[in-house]
C-alpha cells in the first residue's frame, strides 16, 4: 500500500487531466473573444475519434492524434457557425453539445452495430500516462505563448480590443479561427484522455458533464490558464476525496449517507467561489461578433 497521500494526489491528477484539457481548450477560444459552451461536445467528439482510431490502428498515439482531430472537426463547425455565420455563441455551443451527444452513438451504431460504445481497447492501445503530464505541459505552453509571443498578444487583443488588432493589420477573425480550432484540438485531447486513459473505450455520454465543469474552472480561474488549471485540480481533488470518503462514519454511528458525500465536491465549489469574492471579469469582447461596421 502506497501512502494514502500519494494515492490521493495521483487520483487528483487523473481526475483533473480531462478537465485541464477542456479548460485550456475553452481558454483558447474565450481569450480570443469567442464563448465556448461547446466544450462538452468537443470532449465527446475527441473521445469518440480517439477510441475509433486507437481501436482500428492498435496505436494509442494515433488514437490521441485522432482525438485532437475529432475536436478540431467539431471546432471547425463551431467556427463556421459563429465566425462565418455570426450565430449566437451560446446557442451554437449548446447545439453542438446536443449534436455530439446524439451523433456519437449513432456513429457507434453505424460503425460497430453497438448502441453506444466502441470496442474495448487493450492496455497497449490506451493512452494512460502521457495525458496526465501532457496537460500540464500544455498549461506551461499556453502560459508562455500568451506572455512571451506575438501570437499570444494577438490572441489576447482579439478578446480584449479587437479593433486595435484590426487596425494593426491583423485579421481579427483569422486570429479567432486559429484560437477556436486550437481550442478544439486541445479539448479533443481531453476527450482522448477520457476514452483512452480514464476508460477503455468510448461510451455514450462519456464526458458526463466534464465540459461544463471545465467551463466552470475557466470562469473560476478568471480566464487565465494557470489559475483555471488549478481550479481543475481543485475539482479533481474534491472528486478523489469524495471517492475516499464514501462510507465514512462519524464516531461509531451509521455511515454518512452516500449522497451527502457525493455532493461534497459541488458544495465545496460553491463555497470556495463565494469566498473567493468578486465577479470575475471576462475578456471585454467576449461573445461579441467582430465586424468593422457593427462595432461602434
Amino acid at each position, binding site marked *: 500500500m502506497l501512502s494514502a497521500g500519494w494515492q490521493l494526489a495521483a487520483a487528483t491528477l487523473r481526475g483533473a487531466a480531462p478537465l485541464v484539457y477542456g479548460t485550456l481548450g475553452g481558454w483558447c477560444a474565450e481569450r480570443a473573444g469567442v464563448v465556448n459552451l461547446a466544450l462538452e461536445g468537443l470532449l465527446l467528439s475527441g473521445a469518440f475519434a480517439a477510441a475509433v482510431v486507437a481501436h482500428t490502428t492498435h496505436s494509442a498515439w494515433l488514437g490521441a492524434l485522432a482525438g485532437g482531430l475529432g475536436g478540431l472537426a467539431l471546432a471547425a463547425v463551431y467556427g463556421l457557425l459563429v465566425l462565418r455565420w455570426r450565430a449566437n455563441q451560446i446557442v451554437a455551443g449548446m447545439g453542438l453539445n446536443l449534436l455530439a451527444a446524439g451523433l456519437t452513438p449513432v456513429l457507434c451504431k453505424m460503425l460497430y452495430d453497438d448502441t453506444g460504445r466502441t470496442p474495448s481497447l487493450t492496455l497497449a492501445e490506451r493512452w494512460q500516462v502521457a495525458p496526465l503530464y501532457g496537460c500540464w505541459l500544455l498549461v506551461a505552453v499556453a502560459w508562455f505563448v500568451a506572455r512571451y*509571443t506575438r501570437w499570444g*498578444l494577438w490572441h*489576447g487583443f482579439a478578446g*480584449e480590443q479587437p479593433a*486595435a488588432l484590426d*487596425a494593426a493589420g491583423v485579421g481579427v477573425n483569422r486570429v479567432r479561427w486559429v484560437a477556436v480550432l486550437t481550442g478544439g484540438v486541445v479539448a479533443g485531447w481531453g476527450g482522448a484522455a477520457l476514452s483512452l486513459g480514464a476508460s477503455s473505450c468510448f461510451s455514450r455520454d462519456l464526458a458526463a458533464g466534464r465540459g461544463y465543469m471545465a467551463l466552470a474552472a475557466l470562469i473560476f480561474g478568471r480566464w487565465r490558464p494557470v489559475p483555471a488549471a488549478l481550479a481543475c485540480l481543485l475539482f479533481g481533488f474534491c472528486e478523489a476525496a469524495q471517492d475516499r470518503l464514501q462510507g465514512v462514519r462519524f464516531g461509531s454511528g451509521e455511515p454518512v449517507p452516500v449522497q451527502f458525500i457525493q455532493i461534497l465536491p459541488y458544495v465545496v465549489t460553491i463555497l470556495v467561489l463565494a469566498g473567493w469574492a468578486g465577479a470575475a471579469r471576462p475578456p471585454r469582447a467576449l461573445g461579441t461578433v467582430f465586424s*468593422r461596421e457593427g462595432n461602434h
Partner: protein
Amino acid sequence: MALPPPPAVELRALTKRFGGLLANAGVDLRVAAGTIHGVIGENGAGKSTAMKLLLGLLPADAGQIFIRGERWARPSPAGARALGLGMVHQHFLLADPYTALDNLLLAEGPGRPLLLRRDAARAELRALAQRHGLEMDWDAPVASLPVGVRQRLEILKLLAGRAEILVLDEPTAVLTPLETGRLFEQLRRLRDEGKTVILVTHKLREVMAVTDQISVFRAGRVTGERRTSETTPEELAQLMVGRPVALRWAAAPGLAGGEERLAVADLGLAAVGGAARPRLSGITFSVGAGEIVGVAGVEGNGQSELIQALLHPCDRRCRTGGTVRILGREVTRWSPRAIRDLGVGVVPEDRLREGLLPARPLWENFLLGRQREPAFQRGGLLRPAAVAAAAARAVADYDVRPPALGQAAGALSGGNQQKLILARELGRAPRLILAAQPTRGVDVGAIEDIHQRLVRARDAGAGVLLVSSELEEIRALADRTLVMFDGRIVAEYPRGGATERELGLKMGGA
C-alpha cells in the same frame, strides 16, 4: 515649371452607407502634403467615417482614394500601414489589462519575429519617445494610465510605425488646455518634419489655432473648404450647422445661498488594479437650491466616480468613505431608488450605456426610472395609456425627433437621445439635478436648448451639479465652479472668478 506636388491624400466622391443611413454621401477632400489639415463638422456629420475609409478600416461603397497622387485600389489596414498612414482614434484602441509596451508591440502588426523582444523594444521606444518629448511608463498597464498619457501612447504608436500621414480624431476631447497646447506644438513639429496631419475636431477655436487649411463636413459631405488664415469661427459655425449661430451665451446668475440640496463631506474611493492614487479623496462641497455648481476637469479625474458615488453611495464599489446628504437627509446608506425618490434627476455621462435601453421603444425609455410613480402604475401593473400620453407630451415638449413612441431609442440620433433623457429626468420636477456632460455629442442648436432647460430648472429652485469637460459650458452656466484633478477638488471659483487660463492650469494639476 515643375508641377505642384500631388496632395498627400485625396478622397473623391467617397460614399458609405450603414444600413439605411448614408454616413458619407460623396466626400471630396484634398489634403496638401506637409500641412495640418483641419476637418470639422457637427457630431454625426461623417468625419470619423471618412477617416476610417481612408485608413482602410471600412470598405467604401463608392468613390476613390488617392495617396500621394496614386490611386489606392484596395484599401486595407495593412495597406495603410505600408503607405505610411496612421490614425489616433476617437475611442482609443488600447487594451486595458496590457502594458503600454504591449499595446505598442501589437501595433507593429504581422511579419515580425514570433518571440516578443520586450527589452530591445523598450530601449528603442524610449529613444523615440525622448526625441519627440513624449514621456511614458512603458510597463504600466494601460488601465492605470491617465487619459492624456494614453493619447501620447496612441501618437507614439503612429510614430513608431513610421507614419507619414497622421490622422487624429478628436484628440483634444480628453486634454487640459495646457496639454492641448503641448499637443499642438507636437503637431506643428511633425508638420515641420514634413509629415502631413489631419486633425478632426468640432472645436472651432482649435482648428483656428493650429491648422493651415480646413474642410467642413455637413450631413455626410464636405460643404466648405477654407484657408485658416482667411476665415472666422463664425463663418465656420455657419458652414457646420447651415445657419448662423450665436457662439457665446451666458446664463443669468442664479440666486446664491438657497437652502442646501446636496452636501458631500470627505468622500473617498479607494484605488483599484494597482493604481497608486485613490480614485476619489476628500471630496467636500455643497450645492444649494437655485444654483448651478460646475465641476470642471479633464475627463478621468474622478468626475464619473463622483456622480456614481452620489447615486450609489451604499455600494462599496462607488464609495469607500465619507458621507452624502441630499435635501438635508443623510443618504449614505440609502438605495439608489430611495435617493431618486427624494427628487433627484440624473443625466448620465454616457447616455447609451447608462441612460437608455437602446433596443426598447421610446415610451419605455421615457418610463425607465419612473416606473413606480403612481401616475404610471397601479398595484404593480403599468398603465400603458397614461405612460403613452405622458411620453407623447414630453417628446413634443422637448422636440424629440422623430416623435415615434414605438421606435427603438437606439435609433435616435445622439442629440435626440439626450433630449429624451432630459424630458424624462426634468419631467419629474427634480429638486437636485446631477448632469454629467449633458451636451456631449449634441449639435450646436440643441446645446443651446439643453442649456436653457437646465437654467430654467435652476430658476425653478432645483440645485444643479453640472459636470463637464467643456470649459466654455462651465463658464457659461455655472454659478460656482469646482475644479477636479486626480480625484480631488483642487480649486473653487465663483462665477467669473477665474480666467480660462487659470481654470486650465488648475485642471492640469498646476
